[in-house]
């Protein structure tokens, strides 16, 4: 009996350690990224780093502003395309489509989310970039190419989370609306969509986080030129691309500056995550196991 109690005690403590493991890992991650990244801020100056326009490690210049703009532009442009398409698709799947069509669309969305990001990047490199080159001139490597690829990549994220929140709207709402003689579309537009809006906004923010964090698929099509873009057909470089491209050969302050880039990226993601959580707790959104 006593042995049993000791066993139970040990098991509970063991499980507790696995439970707090994630938090410990996050602390270690933050610690190591800061340890390697802060020297760049100290030496180059935090504001020079954040708002500097020139990134030229050979000349000791480490300004990431153009890459912050690059990341944001690529992401916003992709959301501009992904949000309407994925919301329409989510509403279609949750509210409109008959069961047999739903049974086709569900695995389609799951498969889209299962395709590795490098494969999307590869597809962009061999199909999309040549197509854009022939249609619009230039090299084809551009902000536009990257945002098209990201559109496809965030589509499943936004569709599945907003579908969940549409489904969570109680049936009585719809029945009351139908009872008043509203059509299905009027019910969706005036009742279901507004009720599901907090969850849908969360879905969009999570999709945005995924787009900002995507690395290799973007590198393969975005052109990677450090500049503030003047048109959507200009090549840009994102924060993630900057790290992945240069880490292989970086030393000294350059190495620290790439970790500094990661700190900036981390901060952007944390802001998005906090906003998403604020909306979720304020409006009590339950999106199941959703995350960026």
């Amino acid at each position, binding site marked *: 009996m006593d042995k049993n109690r000791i066993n139970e005690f040990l098991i509970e403590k063991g*499980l507790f350690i696995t439970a707090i493991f994630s*938090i410990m890992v996050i602390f270690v991650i933050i610690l190591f990224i800061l340890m390697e990244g802060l020297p760049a801020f100290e030496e180059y100056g935090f504001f020079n780093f954040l708002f500097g326009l020139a990134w030229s490690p050979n000349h000791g210049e480490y300004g990431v502003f153009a890459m912050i703009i690059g990341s944001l532009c690529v992401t916003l442009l992709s959301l501009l395309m992904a949000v309407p398409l994925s919301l329409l698709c989510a509403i279609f799947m949750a509210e409109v489509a008959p069961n047999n069509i739903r049974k086709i669309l569900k695995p389609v969305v799951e498969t889209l989310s299962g395709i590795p990001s490098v*494969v999307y990047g590869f597809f962009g490199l061999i199909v999309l970039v040549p197509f854009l080159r022939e249609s619009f001139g230039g090299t084809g490597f551009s902000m536009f190419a990257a945002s098209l690829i990201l559109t496809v990549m965030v589509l499943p994220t936004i569709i599945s989370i907003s579908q969940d929140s549409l489904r969570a709207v109680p049936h009585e709402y719809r029945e009351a609306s139908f009872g008043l003689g509203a059509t299905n579309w009027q019910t969706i537009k005036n009742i279901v969509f507004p009720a599901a809006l907090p969850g849908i906004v969360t879905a969009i923010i999570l999709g945005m986080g995924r787009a900002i*964090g995507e690395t290799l698929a973007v590198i393969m099509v975005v052109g990677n030129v450090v500049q503030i873009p003047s048109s959507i057909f200009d090549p840009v470089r994102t924060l993630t691309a900057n790290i992945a491209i240069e880490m292989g050969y970086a030393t000294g302050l350059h190495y620290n500056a790439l970790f500094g880039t990661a700190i900036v990226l981390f901060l952007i993601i944390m802001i998005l995550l906090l906003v998403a959580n604020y909306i979720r707790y304020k409006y009590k959104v339950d999106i199941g196991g959703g995350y960026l």
Partner: protein
Amino acid sequence: MGFRVLSPRISQKIMNIVFIISGLITILILVFVLGYILIKGLPVVNLDFIFSNPIDSGREGGIFPMIVSSLFVTLIAGIIATPLGVGAAVYLAEYAGENWLVKVIRFGAETLASIPSIVFGLFGLAFFVVFLGLGWSILSGSLVLAIMAIPTIFQVSEVTISSIPSSFREGSFGLGATKWQTVYRVVLPAAIPGIVTGVILGMTRAISEAAAVMFAVGAALSLPLSIFDPGRPLPLHLYILATEGISLDNAYGTAAVLVILVLFVTIITNLAVDRYQNKIMGR
């Protein structure tokens, strides 16, 4: 606002068409991407391609070491991440109750899931490769992938375990079982389908990942024989072949193998989980 001038019936009809088009676009995107990769890639894929070593950094030859590297890092990552993710889920669902610590743990898992893979890549380099001195190795890569897979396994398992009816537990307690006996003999077996789904989701994420392992696993073309050897998983190989313009044909082949591997694992697991679920429910 524009819809106000239309009658409700006409706007309903228009929207129906818009919805159908949005569904079709989604299907077409998948058909186009998947079709293109498979049509271009499958002619390259044969037994020789799968089971031979690359020649001249991948210009010629096959991708056997890359397939082994991919399965190797994914397997080790799964072995490390599964007990941690499931353990955390059991603790939260069965032991903890609702308190501030549980909220912090959930937020932690969410944060971990949201960190971009390239940041994990840097962390893997700074911590596992350099600080712990594990070097560029399968082990370093697996550890990074394990950390990335934990939140997925945790979240899916927690939802499943919480959804097990409390009558299951009461029956077990009534027979005099301890808490752990109940969890181990009653709750976990009933939750297996969901847990397996979570583990597989985490593993497909791991097997698809390139950015997180590119600075941890090395990029060796040779066959990894132990966890301390460097390797080159398929996604990383595809990335290198494509961006360095080494061989377009072999890149197509690698992409096709990678996609088939991921889809195959997903479909098989879904089928197996459905079957187990039907069996448990007595259907």
